[in-house]
């Protein structure tokens, strides 16, 4: 509407009582929490919002036309943020059937890099406390951006694997469960999407079990490389390329619209 400038906001013409009622209806219909977030950060990461905005437009277009564009949406999601991998699960139906999609950016990063003994790894931990209760995870992805780095043999193949960290103890290596692995050419650039659905389900049911995920990079000759060295962007990278997680949910009960 705004783009067409056809319909103007009529809010100002309402009386204060009507304004309150209208606001209450909007919050209820859109399933929004009772109030805006307290302190918007000055410069939040923009990678997740850009991805989610893309998803929003695809989902809205699907709603308007009433036709299933599931596969297209899956493709679209990738088209907007091209990934290097063909292993990503088919998100089309997952996106079409999702009631809620959440992206997580609050990130704790640790890594073992060039200054320490191999194998090198990088850990990512998201704050998943806001996971909506009463909804089930249908799919979850960890997205990280790979840039081009100097000194890389472009045709070399990198094997990037992501593990869920289970049961950590101070004196021993944690237990790791493989979630996904992608083989990517060292000379290409773009988003990588790793399927972390099984870990997300566990974290939703047992929030304390969320110890994060660990990422390893190896060459064909099983030589361990540092994530930063092969161009994987961390939370100190450009805002539009910082890593994030996205989780798709289905609601267990169908919300009904309150009468106006």
């Amino acid at each position, binding site marked *: 509407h705004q783009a067409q400038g056809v319909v103007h906001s009529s809010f100002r013409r309402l009386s204060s009582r009507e304004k309150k009622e209208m606001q209450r209806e909007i919050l209820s219909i859109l399933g929004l929490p009772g109030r805006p977030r307290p302190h918007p950060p000055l410069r939040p990461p923009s990678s997740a919002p850009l991805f989610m905005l893309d998803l929003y437009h695809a989902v*809205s277009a699907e709603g308007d036309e009433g036709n299933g564009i599931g596969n297209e949406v899956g493709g679209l999601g990738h088209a907007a943020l091209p990934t290097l991998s063909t292993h990503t699960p088919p998100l089309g139906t997952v996106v079409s059937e999702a009631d809620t999609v959440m992206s997580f950016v609050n990130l704790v990063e640790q890594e073992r890099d060039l200054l320490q003994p191999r194998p090198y790894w990088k850990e990512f931990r998201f704050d998943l406390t806001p996971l909506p209760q009463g909804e089930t995870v249908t799919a979850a992805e960890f997205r990280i951006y790979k840039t081009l780095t100097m000194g890389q043999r472009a045709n070399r193949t990198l094997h990037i694997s992501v593990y869920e960290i289970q049961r950590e103890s101070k004196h021993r290596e944690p237990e790791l469960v493989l979630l996904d692995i992608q083989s990517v050419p060292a000379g290409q650039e773009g988003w990588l999407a790793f399927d972390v659905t099984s870990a997300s389900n566990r974290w939703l049911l047992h929030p304390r079990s969320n110890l994060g995920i660990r990422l390893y990079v190896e060459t064909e000759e099983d030589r361990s490389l540092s994530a930063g060295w092969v161009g994987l962007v961390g939370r100190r990278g450009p805002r539009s390329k910082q890593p994030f997680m996205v989780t798709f949910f289905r609601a267990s009960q169908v919300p009904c619209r309150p009468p106006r």
Partner: protein
Amino acid sequence: ALKPNPRKRKPKYDLPLPSIHDHSHVNSGRQACKRHELYVSFSDLGWKDWVLAPSGYSAFYCDGECLYPLGSCMNATNHAMIQLVVHLLKPDEVPKACCAPTKLSPISVLFYDDNNNVILKKHRNMVVKTCGC
């Protein structure tokens, strides 16, 4: 060729002959049943930094007359037509056909939560798409 006597009132149940261009009820200021929109921009609510999309909310509602569902610009169920005829015969017992939503469409919203995570919520069958009698 005699002109009817203007004083003589038309009988109440005199249904006009339906014609495809019959807009008489519209001209008399009574709007036919249709969807109306009250658009609220989120900027007005001070939510611009909170809700990423859409840019506003359209509070659609159905309003208008269902007196002549046979008119060209109105979609009406058979039930509404029958109800109108019965109403004309027994106005005290059967109400007129009413203007109501006939199709609902989904609505989605993209917003920040308290932890600056971005959330996309999709609600099916939540806003009025079309109205009818």
